[in-house]
């Protein structure tokens, strides 16, 4: 049986999530022995044609051309897996979706006619069917490896649906929000990072996006109750996965 084929694609992004694959220093060569990497432009000039068993998609859709390209990726791919906040939620560049256009047009650069871009930044799932999503800005390396291993074994990759808050409890980190009055989005943020920020004495800023069934009103009230100004709460909820938190608003 020939090994499963893999392709890695980039849309609007910082390259950090695909770098996470190269950051698997202990596993990279083993992975390369198990899958046929047919297309990974950041790592190799070799470009093989599709179809691909699995496509990893990084980045958000911000141009007309991207829309065509993500559709082509979908057509050529058995499984389409989006990696990171840009591909799953539109990324930080989705801040443009909510910007006052009049304000932005004052910031026009020298020759706008040279550039073409859409007014919105959207996740791949707004355009094509996505089979699996790895969240995070950036994704977690362990989660990526677990997903690749599951796909190789033909099992269903584990999807974490809890919150950062629960991970903090498991890790034994004292609650920053309750015990020290530090603004923290842990109660409403999807787990997957291992509750990293609170372990570093820092409140969660939601880079994995909203978890399921959240109560945003309650977290807003709590943040305001500990003295966080309203505009600071808006900024906290409106940064790395702004589009997802907006859509989670009741």
């Amino acid at each position, binding site marked *: 049986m020939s090994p499963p084929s893999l392709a890695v694609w*980039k849309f*609007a992004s*910082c*390259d*950090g999530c*695909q*770098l996470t694959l*190269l*950051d698997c*220093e*202990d596993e*990279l*060569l083993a992975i*390369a022995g198990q899958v046929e*990497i047919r297309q*990974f*432009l*950041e*790592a*190799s*000039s070799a470009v093989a044609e599709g179809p691909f068993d699995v496509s990893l998609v990084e980045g958000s859709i*911000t*141009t007309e051309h*991207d829309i065509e390209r993500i559709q082509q990726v979908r057509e050529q791919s058995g499984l389409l897996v989006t990696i990171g906040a840009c591909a799953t939620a539109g990324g*930080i*560049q989705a*801040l*443009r979706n909510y*910007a006052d*256009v009049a*304000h*932005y*047009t004052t*910031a*026009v*650069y020298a*020759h*706008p006619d*040279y*550039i*073409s*871009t*859409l*007014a919105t*930044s959207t996740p791949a799932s707004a355009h094509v069917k996505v089979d699996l999503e790895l969240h995070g*800005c*950036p994704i977690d*390396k362990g989660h990526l490896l677990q997903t690749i291993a599951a796909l190789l074994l033909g099992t269903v990759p584990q999807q974490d649906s809890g919150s950062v808050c629960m991970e903090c409890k498991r890790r034994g980190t004292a609650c920053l929000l309750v015990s020290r009055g530090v603004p923290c989005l842990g109660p409403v943020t999807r787990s997957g*990072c291992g509750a*990293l*920020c609170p*372990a*570093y*004495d*820092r409140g969660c800023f939601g*880079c994995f996006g909203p978890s399921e069934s959240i109560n945003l009103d309650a977290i807003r009230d709590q943040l305001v109750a500990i003295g966080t100004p309203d505009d*600071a709460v808006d*900024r906290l909820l409106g*940064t*790395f996965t702004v589009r997802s938190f907006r859509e989670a608003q009741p």
Partner: protein
Amino acid sequence: MTHRTGNRLLQVGALARVEGEGALYVQVDDDRVTAAQLQIYEPPRFFEAFLRGRHCSEPPDITARICGICPVAYQMSACLAIEDVCGVAVPDDIAALRQLLYCGEWIESHALHIYLLHAPDFLGYDGAIEMARDHRDLVQQALRLKKIGNAILELIGGRAVHPINVRVGGFYRSPTAADIAALEPELQWALQASWDTVARVAAFDFPDYDGDWDLVALAGSEDSGGMSCSGTYPIMGRRIAAASGRLDIDVAAFTEHFREEHLPHSTALHGRWDGGPYLVGPLARYALNRALLPEQARAAAQAAGLEEVCRNPFRSIIVRAVELVAACEMALDLVRGYRPPREPFVEVPVRAGVGHGVSEAPRGLLYHRYEIDDDGLIVSATIVPPTAQNQPAIEHDLQHLVEDNLDLGDGELTHRCEQAIRNYDPCISCATHFLRLEVHRA
């Protein structure tokens, strides 16, 4: 070899082994190069536009997202700029921890570029995975080097990509002495391995080429405190100089000397200096600060026969390897001398004004400027990344390389041009972040 005459078009639609989306376009009409472009078509993400109105505590996290390969560079230039607005300089112990974190990024990024992105050009492979079939030890060495860089980033920063522990004024939490000490054995190995790297890459065959651009980098200075003081190969500092001697300025004067141009074939603005095309990055740092290299790095450069000023960008891989030695050496020193800072951060009281910050990203000078108001909100932000500054020099090289090598067949010439681009370790994601918005509605 037959001399090829007439009109030729060399094109690569999507460049490999660079960070981001770029293309190569060279046109030759009657043996004259009429166009030589590194086309950057990566869509803009408008960071400078949406930074407006954000709080001045946010740029370290927000601008890190411009580049997943060098987030620490963005975090450091951002912190330095905001602290400059507010008139705060962090104490030496915090500056030392910043420098150690930055060394981690240099080690990770340089090992990635030298071995996984650049070496395949010299050894004749499509990429590192293909190269590993014949040179497994080489790739394993690369991955182990990369891993120690990432280990520093993970320990101090919390994670390798977009570290979470950096804040204006310092860090949220400082690592314990025991945690930092645990880095020492692997760093000792890395120092040896980076020596070996210099020797290996110095043995590659290099095409002859001499760039006639100027070289611009941070320069050591006597009076800037903390870790940017004289005697240390500068990664963070304020003084910017050119190898030609035609420039020696404080960072506050940056925009008086450098400007950005918007050209049709690029979503990145081109960096221009009245002095003409200039280069930032390892060649520039080495030319200006060779004397400030730590001892072993200087010895490695000498053993490799590296000239005092290297103007052949193909040989930048040797300079990058020398800097890898330097980063390991500096990191080891910092690890051995580490005491947890008295406080992980200092308060940075908000005050309205303009500030500038600059640091040496692995790819070269990264400049940030912020204007903030009385409430600490950002009025304007300007970010000038290294690849945007290098783009004119890269195109200048493409033009000359093609003119000098018209005898080569199209395939070989195209490959040579691709290599010329990879010489600079271009980070296209960085270069493209900062275009301002044009709304295009259906």
